């Protein structure tokens, strides 16, 4: 049995759901969770249900909010005392930012943005996309332990029937004394919705959107089905949408359950970024557009005529 530690990133009153995906997949090993700051009783229960045998909470000075140095330093201190084989986190904004620094502090290897993994005995093997998903490769880590791994949200999926259990909890204190890069303010994004990389449903618009204002057609559809709105590079480069909305090789790589591509022709770098979506719907006037080769359901037609009808139909179905 490998000794596995999962970093649970605080998210509102709970933790990022990728934490549960990792726990589900690493069942059968010695599983512990570490977090920074207070977790609610419900969240502790959930972590235990998904297999966490112990939940450690790190508290201390300068850990109230995220900072790459503060998080890395506190976790370095905690992990150094624990003899862990593998340390996991979600490949979220924070995970991607501080985990490499943490791995560097141990002179240890790290595998980024892994989409699947298995253990052979105590040895870990992962699969990760490269070239924005144009190809996949097997990845393994060598050299001194612990080894570090970040997991792409939504890739593993949640295990179906977690068992009921109560966690053992413990507190660990660490004061961060020297921090150079400090957050002085957080500016909220335009949308309160889930980030593209974590969204379960995405509605994306391409060059055919014509202008920024027309994205309201997609926003209306997104509101009905609880989706996050994305855009192709063509739409972003034309100024119709901000870069934070871009899906593709030079934007976000996404893997939602449902991806609805509207007026997107399907350039190779866009397809690379969304092809792992479980179900793809494409709406495009050009019946030969490359996007149709990746679509489960293709609708040849004008998005401005089709999307409003689709929105209404879904509204009726979902009773909204």
């Amino acid at each position, binding site marked *: 049995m490998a000794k596995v530690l999962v970093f649970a990133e605080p998210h509102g009153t709970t933790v990022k759901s990728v934490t549960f995906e990792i726990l589900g997949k690493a069942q059968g090993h010695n599983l512990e969770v570490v977090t920074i700051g207070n977790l609610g009783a419900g969240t502790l229960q959930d972590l235990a249900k998904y297999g966490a045998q112990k939940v450690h909470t790190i508290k201390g000075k300068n850990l109230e909010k995220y900072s790459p*140095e503060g998080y*890395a330093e506190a976790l370095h201190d905690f992990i150094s005392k624990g003899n862990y084989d593998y340390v996991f986190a979600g490949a979220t*904004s*924070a995970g*991607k930012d501080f985990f*490499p*620094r943490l*791995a*560097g502090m141990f002179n240890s*290897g*790290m595998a*980024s*943005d892994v989409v699947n993994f298995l253990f052979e005995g105590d040895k870990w093997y992962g699969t990760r*996309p*490269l*070239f924005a*998903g*144009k*190809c*996949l*490769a097997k*990845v*393994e880590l*060598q*050299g001194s332990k612990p080894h570090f791994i970040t997991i792409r949200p939504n890739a593993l999926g949640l295990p179906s029937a977690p068992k009921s259990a109560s966690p053992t909890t413990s507190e660990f204190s660490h004061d961060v004394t020297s921090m*150079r*890069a400090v*957050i*002085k*303010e*957080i*500016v*909220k*994004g335009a*949308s309160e919705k889930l*980030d593209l990389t974590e969204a379960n449903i995405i509605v994306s618009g391409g060059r055919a959107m014509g202008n920024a204002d027309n994205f309201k057609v997609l926003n209306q559809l997104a509101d009905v*089905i609880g989706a996050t709105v994305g855009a192709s590079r063509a739409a972003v480069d034309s100024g119709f949408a*901000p*870069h934070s*909305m*871009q899906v593709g*090789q*030079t*934007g976000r790589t996404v893997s939602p359950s*449902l991806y609805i591509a509207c007026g997107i022709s399907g350039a*190779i770098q866009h397809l690379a970024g969304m092809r792992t979506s*479980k*179900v793809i719907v494409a709406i495009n*006037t050009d*019946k030969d557009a490359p996007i*149709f080769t*990746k679509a*489960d*359901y*293709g*609708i*040849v037609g004008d998005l401005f005529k089709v999307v409003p*009808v*689709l929105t209404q139909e879904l509204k009726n*179905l979902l009773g909204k």
Partner: protein
Amino acid sequence: MNIFVCIKQVPDTETKVVPNKDGSFIETSSIKWIMNPYDEFAVEQALLVKGTNANINVTVARVGSVQSSEALRTALAMGADDAILVEAADNLDSYTTAKALKLAIEKSGKKPDLILTGKQAIDSDCLQVPQLLAQMMGLPSVSVVVGFELNGENLVLKREIEGGALEIYNVGLPCLVACGKGLNTPRYASLPGIMKAKKKPLTQHTLAALGISDADRKVKYSEFKLPPEKPAGKKFDASEEQNIGKVVKEVVTLLRNEAKVI
């Protein structure tokens, strides 16, 4: 003031990636190589800072194969002062790459006040080298930076996180900044710039000369393969307005009953 910009040469985004025969990497023989798009923002940011003070030296450094040092020449043509190339295979892991960059920077004899990189390379997609390099050099780092303001020795940086939200950082020099899209608009190299670039100094090292060996590798890759192709989907014609209602109903029914995602 010394600015170092670390860049990578990557296959063009339009490249069709093909795994090589033994699956140890991809076929690289017919690839068009470009400067990693995020690194262009880093080069531009360095030149914008240099534009405010003539006493700033911008060094651009790259670890990778020698088959073409196009990306370095491009950065020199844009306006960087000198370049460092560490000869290495194109499939190094992040740890080895960061270590090579650190040693090459130290070997230059110049003490970095600011290191700029792209937020990620669009080939390996690891997002590790900037933070690893900062950690190895004992520097703070801020990644995915889309806003940059330098006042004397102090930086105000905007880092983009989930949902387009921004974390605003205060950090003093020296530090490492990993740049994201939207930070600036990279300039094109001018013709005189391209001519001048040919005469600018380019120092070359091997990994061995820097004291790096295979033992430094932490991440091993194998079995490169294309992702599985999806079976052909269903296509519906809604180009005639009277069909739209019917087609949409059908697709929604399929999404609910067949795909079970709604």
